[in-house]
């Protein structure tokens, strides 16, 4: 589904270039639940950004199906994210003045996302994450675990084939982490959505069916 070949990313810095990714070769198959682990600064986030088309690699190629990601225009990349990708972030990235259900519907407000049954689709997903009775709450009126569940519902609303999650349990205690990981497992198993999840936590990493370890921008083991 998603293939990375020889992907290298360097950040320009006054002290010299920083290698965030070096020669990454990686193929992600449909239905995979991949966990990415590694120390801080090992390049995990950079890897997700490149997969999402939010950052261009310095060299190498990334293809989604038969689509070239690394050379696509902003418009094409936006459409790619809007149609195929769901995101879950460590900090939830909810819009503070939108209610839970509005946050869930937000990806459908993207021009061209075109789905008319926004409210019922979002209601179904809030049900899936167990928040149907909180749909008119603002993020600040929800606990951290509830906010992250709203974010998971938002990641699902565009019926993506790939969910990219960057330390989704990083701000949650172990019990809440477990709930979120249950959700991911369910989404992966029952809905067949491919998941790539960056995590620090070995407990969270155990939920995946394949692990990739990064160190200094290289893949160490697993792939």
């Amino acid at each position, binding site marked *: 589904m998603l293939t990375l070949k020889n992907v290298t990313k360097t950040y320009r810095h006054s002290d010299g270039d920083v290698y965030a990714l070096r020669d990454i070769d990686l193929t992600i198959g449909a239905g995979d639940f991949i966990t990415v682990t590694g120390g801080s600064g090992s390049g995990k986030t950079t890897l997700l*950004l490149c997969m999402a088309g*939010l950052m261009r690699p310095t060299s190498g190629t990334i293809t989604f199906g038969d689509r070239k990601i690394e050379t696509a225009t902003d418009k094409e990349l936006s459409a790619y994210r809007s149609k195929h990708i769901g995101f879950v972030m460590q900090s939830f*990235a909810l819009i*503070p003045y939108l209610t839970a259900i509005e946050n869930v519907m937000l990806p*459908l407000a993207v*021009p061209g*996302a075109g789905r008319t049954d*926004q409210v019922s689709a979002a209601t179904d997903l809030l049900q899936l994450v167990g928040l149907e009775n909180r749909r008119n709450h603002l993020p600040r009126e929800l606990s951290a675990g509830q906010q992250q569940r709203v974010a998971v519902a938002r990641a699902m609303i565009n019926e993506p084939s790939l969910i990219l999650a960057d330390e989704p349990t990083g701000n949650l205690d172990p019990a809440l982490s477990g709930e979120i990981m249950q959700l991911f497992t369910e989404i992966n198993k029952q809905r067949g959505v491919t998941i790539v999840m960056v995590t620090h936590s070995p407990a969270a990493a155990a939920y995946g069916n394949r692990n990739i370890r990064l160190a200094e921008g290289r893949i160490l083991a697993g792939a």
Partner: protein
Amino acid sequence: MRKPSVKGLSVGRLIRIEFRQRRTQMISGLLAITLGIAVIVAIRSISLVSEKAVAINLDNLGANVLVLPQGATVDNYYTADIDAPTLPEEYAETIATSDLTGVDNMSPKLTRRVNVNGEKIVLTGILPKNELVSKPIWKRSGLFGKGLKASCGPSPLNESHGYKDEKLQRKSIEALAEYDCLVGATAAQKLHLKENSNLTIEGKSFRVEKVLPETGTVDDDRVFAHLHTVQRLLGIGSQVSAIEIMGCCNAITDGLLSKLRNILPDTRVTTIGQIVSTQVQTNKLMKKLSVVFLIIIVFVGAVSIGNSMWANVNERKKEIGTLRMIGFPKTSVYRMILTKAMVLGLAGGVLGYAIGSMAAMWLGPEFAGIEVSPTLMLLPASVALSTAVAAIGAAIPAYFAGRIEPFDNMQEN
């Protein structure tokens, strides 16, 4: 919390919700442009009306030569301040008894702002018979006469203005008794006067002889009484503010003006043409003033809207990053910022027009001595200007908003 009825999201609704969220920020961005538009609208409203009023006035004056006191401005002639300079009434006789040729008619006038039934109204003292012949406008129908043209005698003017019932007109003014008065249409409305009503001018009781038909000139706001009554009432002696003269155009080119100047010391003898050119200069000045304000508004308005949008973009960096992440293209973010700015501009244009028009209605009579009504024509112009200025101001913040990348959300650890 907003009410629980849930609607689907669109870019437009997203903008509306965000607007509500940051009301004060948006209103502060609106202030400068609203004030700027208000100033322009006020200036333009007053000057448009004043241009029209003076043009109509001169057109309808029925006179083409004015004798004014030395040092008086044409403004004095219209605004009738309490201390406006005067000239002796006997000058009218001097003209009449001189061997000057080409003076078809004349009308000495005394004009003063006075208290009538508690309202500030301009009272004009006239000599009935004379006033009549050189002033055919009270029976005019249309608002705009022909262009200004010095005509020879009242007859062609009368014709061109459709003035027919001269006898009736003459009779009504000849009948103007010591304590009778004529009331302009607007003044009558303001003071709730009808024919035969009584009114008190500076403590004396007058009877309304007649309410004059509307002329579209300053005369509509005025009350007319017998010159000598007015002089006595105001304790001004035998003085007048001006003598309007209907001169024959040939005579004017033959040096009527300089002859008048010779026999009337300490006066300013001027033709309508000169007044018009004075007015044209004033109008030019007003236009320049408008242009100056226009430039200021474009700068200040654009900077203020730009500043407000800049603050908006800055504090929303994270949100914008999120929008980009979930698939909003750069152009969409760019458009959202521009739309917001243009909505502000639109609101600023409408508000500015409303405030400016109200200011003009209030300031016009106070400072320029003319009634100003809102000029609807200025509304689309204000809105267009304000929206364009807002768009210009927001261009840079919008550009930067489009460039915001969602890294903030992701590279936080």
